[in-house]
């Protein structure tokens, strides 16, 4: 390695991140967004016969649920392809032959995938809010045609309350944090995995187990009705796997439960901690890997 090169170069990381984003865009990852659009717009039309409250509830349930599925899928599938593809194309050798440390290479890859996830989240959010706004306007104009005076004012206030609320923004931000965590976790697995299929399968397994981690932790710590030999297993699940249930807040956000600033900050902080630690472990695994 060239001794005059800086140990850590944000410019190099940024360049690799943009390159990763371009690569992923070429992989047609954004086709997922078409599916999301179909689901959101489709559910909006399908529920048009229902009562106003039901329409908005279902639209939010379907859209935020789909957003969570698609960002998680993009995070796992796109990240699992990154390193094997670079190895196959021999891009890794070209990059690492230059004065680029391995931890910078991984940071560039991770930042690239986070950019992709941010972009996907923004596009899905704009689409969801657009469809919600259109439905809201259509319901308001219907109310204006049928009601007047105090009744109309009350109805419009109820429609506004049922559609947009400040909660949606932190709810969507937590969806992004969860997907970023999954990307970081998948990157860590891919640093020691030999095939992208293995990485995907492992990440999906961790995804499911991660949602049960909180339950395992409770059983382990409460110990009520737990056999002595299951305790180490529960402890292993609680300590080795991430608590993904902590990031599943949208189910309750759509029901109208507010996310307070302190709760949002603490949840996001846990997500950032996971991302940081998984990145460091990725560097640890990748530092001595035979390429």
């Amino acid at each position, binding site marked *: 390695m060239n001794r005059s090169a800086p140990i850590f170069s944000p410019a190099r990381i940024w360049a690799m991140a943009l390159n990763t984003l371009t690569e992923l865009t070429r992989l047609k990852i954004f086709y997922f967004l078409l599916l999301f659009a179909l689901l959101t717009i489709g559910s909006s039309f399908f529920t048009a016969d229902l009562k106003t409250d039901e329409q908005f509830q279902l639209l939010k349930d379907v859209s935020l649920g789909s957003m969570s599925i698609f960002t998680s899928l993009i995070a796992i599938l796109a990240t699992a392809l990154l390193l094997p593809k670079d190895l196959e194309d021999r891009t890794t050798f070209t990059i690492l032959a230059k004065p680029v440390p391995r931890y910078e290479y991984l940071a560039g890859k991770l930042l690239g995938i986070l950019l992709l996830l941010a972009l996907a989240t923004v596009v899905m959010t704009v689409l969801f809010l657009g469809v919600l706004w259109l439905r809201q306007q259509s319901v308001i104009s219907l109310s204006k045609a049928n009601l007047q005076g105090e009744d109309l004012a009350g109805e419009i206030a109820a429609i506004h309350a049922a559609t947009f609320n400040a909660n949606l923004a932190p709810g969507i931000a937590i969806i992004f944090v969860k997907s970023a965590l999954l990307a970081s976790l998948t990157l860590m697995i891919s640093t020691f995995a030999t095939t992208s299929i293995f990485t995907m399968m492992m990440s999906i397994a961790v995804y499911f187990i991660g949602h049960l981690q909180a339950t395992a932790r409770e059983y382990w710590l409460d110990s009520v009705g737990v056999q002595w030999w299951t305790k180490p297993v529960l402890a292993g699940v609680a300590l080795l796997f991430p608590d993904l249930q902590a990031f599943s*807040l949208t189910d309750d956000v759509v029901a109208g439960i507010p996310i307070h600033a302190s709760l949002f900050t603490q949840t996001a902080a846990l997500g950032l901690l996971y991302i940081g630690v998984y990145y460091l472990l990725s560097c*640890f695994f990748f530092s001595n890997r035979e390429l």
Partner: protein
Amino acid sequence: MKRAVIAVVLLLLFGAARLPYEIHLQKLQHQAGFNSTSLDLPLRQQLGQMSFVAALSGFRSLVAAILYIDAYDTWQKLEWGRLAGLLQTVTTLQPKSIVYWDMAAWHMAWNASIAALENKAQPSKILREREQRKYWELGKKFYEDGLRNNPDSAELWKNLAVLERDKFEDHAAAAKAFETSSTKPNAYPYVRRFAVYELAKIPGREHEAYDRLKALYAEGRSERSPTLIHLLKQLEEKLGIPADQRIKETNAH
């Protein structure tokens, strides 16, 4: 191999380090009303394997939405038993969603109960009425369970009151539920009046009802609805209120 062992040890250390924070965060989330749904064995039996796994994997609201759409379809086919089961599952999955509780109660207490009463396949009127009452009770149970999960919902309290008034004709329970609704955030302004209307129908509480109707009347024109004036005049007659203390308004009914 050595690196793998080191990695597992590092992960375990990280797990131990974050454990107190995760416990604290979980407590905080539960207190705020997040992730408090119990996904237990009975729910698994209701949902089926795939939906249960999806609900466990952070897609609870999505599974609830899909089942609700299925429930809507079931309602159109008039399959009341299946509809009740689906709505039970939807409300278990999304217990904080007022809309689901409200619609579940409405389907049972209004739609299913009328269908039971008009069921041509059942010749016995007594059995039809018994079935009708069963659906009223089921509707009431949805409201009560919904309120256990959302005690501050003015909408659910109000609709429970309407059920008590229109189906069970229990004016005391209706008055109490309207009264509770009026104290909750975002309550409709008229529920306060409705509580007193119901009070006026309870034998033995006429004096209390009269005083409260009079107090509402004194608040000004916005509270002087035709029903309020009608009830006030009725009670003035019934209680023998002296002419000089009676309201001047003509009976609107």
